[in-house]
């Protein structure tokens, strides 16, 4: 790839001071200029104060991206995206470390309140009180003497990403005690360059696909997690993504490494405001589980889906992949997809280590004009690897909902096992449900099972619920919750109630 090599050479010649200058001129606007070229990539990298290797990495991705074509195999339709008509970097004003609640834009606080992050955490989030102190005062009010936190209340560390910038990360100190690193990836690039360099792009290489490559070039922030050997992460880690700015693409990058024998559970929540125009979201998530490690990754995706006429909404083109690199490792994806105008997303597992295990539990709800093409890939490479896929697709309105999945066994993957269950539920007569499973086995001892069902909410079920006093919307929400129960039960507590409520909200207006 001579072009790439050329870029690297060019980048090496870059006068860093010159970029500092560029940085200065740009800072007034808090946004990169519209459009995407090499200078945009350099701008983002400079804005983040990145080391040279990172800038090179990005530029390499950008060069590659220029040669790539947007994929068209998914069952989604949308007008051509003009990549030059977007902003690639946007930061809320005065987000360089607030010292009191007053310094945080009240709009941002309100936003997080609406997202369901409790007030106590919001304060921590805003950096007003350190996490430990906050937990203490909480215990006091609960008549608990010296307990650091009331029994039974589970703590969740939060990293909040507002547009392109990680606003704040909570419980950093407590996590540090356990040796867990949880911080914005932009910080990790500066503070733990060796770890980031070793693992970034090792699961989703910069050449992977159009959107992942774009992300590699222009990602602005995201979360970084490292759980050291033998450590069970003491609390759930959580990131809330929020697109706010107009015409702004959001490109987060999440990297989670679970070292040998460790465990971590990670929650991701996403929202965006209502906008007439479409917003682009192209994230990359990489998970690495080493020997005997386990990662549980849960998402509740509630980006704005567009209005009744199908105007606006988020284009969600996401690459999520986990690598069970070590023996006996386990990666589990659980996703609740209710938002976005378009969802293009296949959280996958590479089952490399012997006896490793991958899971994918999914609820995908589409209503109105939404289009979902989502599923998973389970790539069995190691011996006695196991995977399990439970997908529940719910289509309503004029939407289209496709499950696309691949289960494959490498010729060395003796004893590989997969169980797949794909259930589709249709509400009304104008929506579509599609199931596209691919199964490839190059090892005779592999056993793959696939089950699929398609059903409709019957008029009799609706009438029965109405006769008992429920409104149509309550009845649909109840029936759909029942349909998706197997997956809802896999969600962490924090997401369970939210999901049940969300199912009701996202199906509003789907009947009658």
């Amino acid at each position, binding site marked *: 790839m001579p072009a790439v090599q050329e870029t690297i050479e060019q980048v090496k010649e870059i006068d860093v001071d010159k970029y500092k200058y560029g940085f200065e001129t740009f800072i007034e606007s808090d946004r990169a200029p519209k459009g995407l070229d090499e200078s945009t990539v350099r701008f983002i990298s400079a804005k983040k104060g990145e080391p040279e290797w990172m800038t090179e990495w990005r530029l390499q991705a950008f060069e590659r991206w220029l040669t790539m074509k947007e994929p068209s195999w998914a069952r989604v339709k949308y007008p051509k995206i003009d990549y030059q008509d977007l902003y690639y970097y946007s930061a809320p004003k005065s987000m360089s470390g607030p010292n009191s609640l007053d310094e945080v834009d009240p709009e941002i606080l309100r936003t997080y309140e609406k997202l369901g992050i409790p007030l106590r955490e919001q304060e921590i989030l805003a950096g007003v009180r350190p996490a430990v102190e906050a937990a203490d005062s909480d215990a006091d009010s609960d008549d608990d003497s010296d307990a650091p936190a009331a029994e039974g209340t589970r703590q969740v560390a939060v990293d909040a990403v507002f547009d392109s910038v990680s606003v704040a990360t909570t419980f950093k100190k407590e996590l540090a005690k356990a040796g867990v690193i949880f911080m914005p990836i932009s910080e990790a690039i500066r503070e733990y360059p060796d770890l980031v360099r070793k693992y970034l792009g090792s699961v989703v290489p910069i050449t992977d696909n159009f959107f992942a490559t774009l992300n590699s070039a222009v990602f602005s922030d995201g979360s970084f997690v490292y759980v050291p050997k033998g450590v069970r992460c003491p609390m759930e880690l959580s990131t809330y993504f929020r697109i706010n700015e107009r015409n702004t693409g959001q490109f987060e990058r999440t990297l989670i490494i679970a070292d040998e024998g460790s465990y971590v559970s990670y929650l991701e929540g996403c929202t965006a405001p209502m906008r007439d125009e479409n917003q682009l979201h192209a994230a990359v998530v990489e998970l690495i589980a080493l020997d005997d490690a386990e990662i549980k990754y849960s998402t509740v995706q509630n980006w704005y889906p567009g209005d009744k006429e199908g105007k606006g909404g988020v284009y969600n083109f996401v690459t999520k992949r986990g690598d069970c690199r070590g023996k006996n490792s386990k990666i589990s994806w659980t996703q609740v997809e209710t938002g976005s105008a378009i969802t293009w997303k296949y959280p996958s597992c590479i089952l490399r280590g012997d006896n490793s295990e991958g899971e994918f539990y999914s609820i995908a709800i589409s209503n109105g004009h939404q289009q979902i093409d989502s599923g998973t890939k389970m790539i069995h490479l190691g011996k006695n690897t196991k995977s399990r896929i439970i997908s529940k697709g719910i289509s309503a309105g004029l939407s289209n909902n496709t499950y696309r999945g691949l289960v494959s066994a490498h010729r060395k993957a003796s004893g590989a096992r997969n169980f797949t269950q794909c259930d589709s539920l249709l509400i009304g007569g104008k929506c579509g449900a599609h199931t596209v499973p691919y199964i490839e086995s190059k090892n005779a001892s592999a056993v793959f099972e696939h089950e699929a069902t398609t059903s409709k909410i019957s008029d009799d079920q609706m009438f029965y619920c109405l006769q*008992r006093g429920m409104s149509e919307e309550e009845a649909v929400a109840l029936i759909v919750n029942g349909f998706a129960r197997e997956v809802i039960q896999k969600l962490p507590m924090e997401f369970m109630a939210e999901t049940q409520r969300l199912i009701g909200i996202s199906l509003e207006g789907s009947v009658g």
Partner: protein
Amino acid sequence: MLEIDNLHAKVAEDDTEILRGLSLKVGPGEVHAIMGPNGSGKSTLSYILAGKEDYDVTDGSITYKGEDLLEMEPDERAAAGVFLAFQYPIEIPGVGTMTFLKTAMNAQRRARGEPELTTPDFMRQVRELAGALNITPDMLKRPLNVGFSGGEKKRNEILQMALLAPSLCVMDETDSGLDIDALRIVADGVNRMRSPERSIIVITHYQRLLEYIVPDHVHVMSRGRIVKSGGRELALELEENGYAEYVEAA
């Protein structure tokens, strides 16, 4: 409580007329039995009372507690106290029986402007009522009616009825598919609910059920209308002679 006057109704899909001038008055505290041969329109009547969409009322009126029942949505009727015990209770996979009961209960309370029940209060009520109907805690955890035996489904209907405490109970062939022990449990459940404020309409083929739930009035329905009304003795007479003379009379 309920006044049905000259009710005419047809199946919306194919215009088949099912009810042809049915009139019935049910006072508070009364138990009425409606008997009749297959196809006489008994189940249709129960669906129309509950507000099922599949039928068009072409003439006549239904007044419930002084209001035009036909103007109300099915869930509004439920909140106003109309309950239908289904002949074939519907299965809802994945929805726990307890969850279903609580959702229904609180939906009705909200519609009436009453506060929702707290979970402990609700659980206490359900447990009390379930015990009397021989419904085990395990059954309450299972998805609604899924894999329930015929008897379990019918007992579950009575449990819902007892919990929601309606003022008008319409029971559509609640005795079908029940053995004698289950019949007794169900009938005892219904009898416990008899009160001066509550009216009950029992739809059945057989007089057997009426030995356990003793009606104040018995009506014979044929070809979409009530062709004869009387006291309890009418049911015994039907048992003896069958419906033939009424089918012809209609």
